[in-house]
């Protein structure tokens, strides 16, 4: 299983050279630290899908002594591993440029990444190759553009929920969000697992 996670680094050797300049660009542009954490985390796991959406890759992985359960688990665990690494590297880069950031930024960046991953990973196994990038782009735009408006709309019209959230203390809010994201991530893993079990190559 570790091998499956490690393979992403071998596959993306060249892209990884882009990784540091990519982060530096965002830092120099003075982007919000939370956004930098999010973008940095997305880098490796989503690059992987450029390979994994191909039928050949699935034929290869499934012909090697791996089970389908492991292949999916490596995606979901790998995303967390690479997120942690990306957060580490990004923190160092931010520190090197004397930019201040807080644990809250890391939490928000990671939280958004996991949310995004949870929503998009299953799509890679539902759609046919070629449609996936489009689906993910739409997903991203949806999350980034329309998402907040819907949240605002809900917030304005369902005061019961907003009142409830507003009434929570900060620690409770974070714990609640973390729990919700964890649950969503786990559910997404489960769904992808089931889809992948049934997939034909």
């Amino acid at each position: 299983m570790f091998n499956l996670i490690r393979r992403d680094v071998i596959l993306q050797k060249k892209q990884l050279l882009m990784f540091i300049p990519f982060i530096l660009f965002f830092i120099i542009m003075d982007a919000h630290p939370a956004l930098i954490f999010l973008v940095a985390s997305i880098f490796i796991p989503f690059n992987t899908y450029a390979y994994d959406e191909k039928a050949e890759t699935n034929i290869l992985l499934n012909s090697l002594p791996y089970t389908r359960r492991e292949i999916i688990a490596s995606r979901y665990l790998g995303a967390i591993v690479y997120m942690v690494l990306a957060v580490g590297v990004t923190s160092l880069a931010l520190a090197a440029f004397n930019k201040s950031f807080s644990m809250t930024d890391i939490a928000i960046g990671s939280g958004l990444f996991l949310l995004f991953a949870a929503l998009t990973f299953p799509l890679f196994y539902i759609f046919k190759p070629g449609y996936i990038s489009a689906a993910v782009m739409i997903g991203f735009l949806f999350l980034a553009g329309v998402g907040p408006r819907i949240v605002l709309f809900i917030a304005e019209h369902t005061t019961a929920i907003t009142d409830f959230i507003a009434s929570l203390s900060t620690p409770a809010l974070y714990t609640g969000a973390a729990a919700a994201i964890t649950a969503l991530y786990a559910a997404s893993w489960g769904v992808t697992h089931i889809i992948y079990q049934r997939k034909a190559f």
Partner: protein
Amino acid sequence: MENVVELKNVTKAFKGFSVKNMDLQVKKGFVTGFIGANGAGKSTTIKLMMNLLKPDAGEVKLFGLDYKTHEKAIKERIGFVYDGNVFFEGLNLKDIKRIVSPAYKNWDDIIFSEYIDKFQLPLHKAIKTFSKGMQMKASLAIALSHHAELIIMDEPTAGLDPIFRRELLNLLQELMVDGNRTIFFSTHITTDLDRIADYIAFIHGGELVFNQSIHEIAENYALVKGGVELLDRDTEKDFVHIHRTSAGFQALTDNMKAVKHTFGDMVVIERASLEDIMYNFKGGMHHV
């Protein structure tokens, strides 16, 4: 005799095509050639063997084990070569080895280097720059470097020049000196099989027509030529397919003994090549 692969009553249906009630055994220590026209179901059958497809009904067992409980143990013992390149085409062989080798408990770097030398493959060039023959050699080097007991190949010779095809056959023959190895490979170039195959499995329209040793085939199948006046409802029943012309008939039989008994010296009986057999099944079975 021990079977390495056993398909029992396997059915897999797709839109407009299906593999039906397939019973197929691959015998240990021998080369089984898997023949059939394009679209007959060769790749589907191989995918069922590799667990890339799951059967709608029936049972697939390799080394007597079930994929449900022993998927990893089974795949440890298989070396696979597919028609197209399945390796990440942007990577070089060294990186591909770094990805593939940790997957196998029995990976053997020494053997791998031997094959790389033997096949004269560059380690530092991207796979996509390889010719078809080199890609095939690269797949083969990887398939043979973990002491696999069963080598499954889907159309390994398709698109290769005759010299390399012969080299490949020589290599496979060397592998067979070790009696624990089994080779199963599909092809539509039947002359590849004349030399090395011990058993021939023939699939037509998603159904297995036969799986016989080359000797059984030579004893059962034959081309029969004679005058059309010899044919009637009774005498035709031993033919798979009959081609009538004004000059006489030519037919394929799967029961040479019966034909000899029926016609004696009135017909000419010739050896049927695998190609003859495949060709005569083209229009479907014509048992009257």
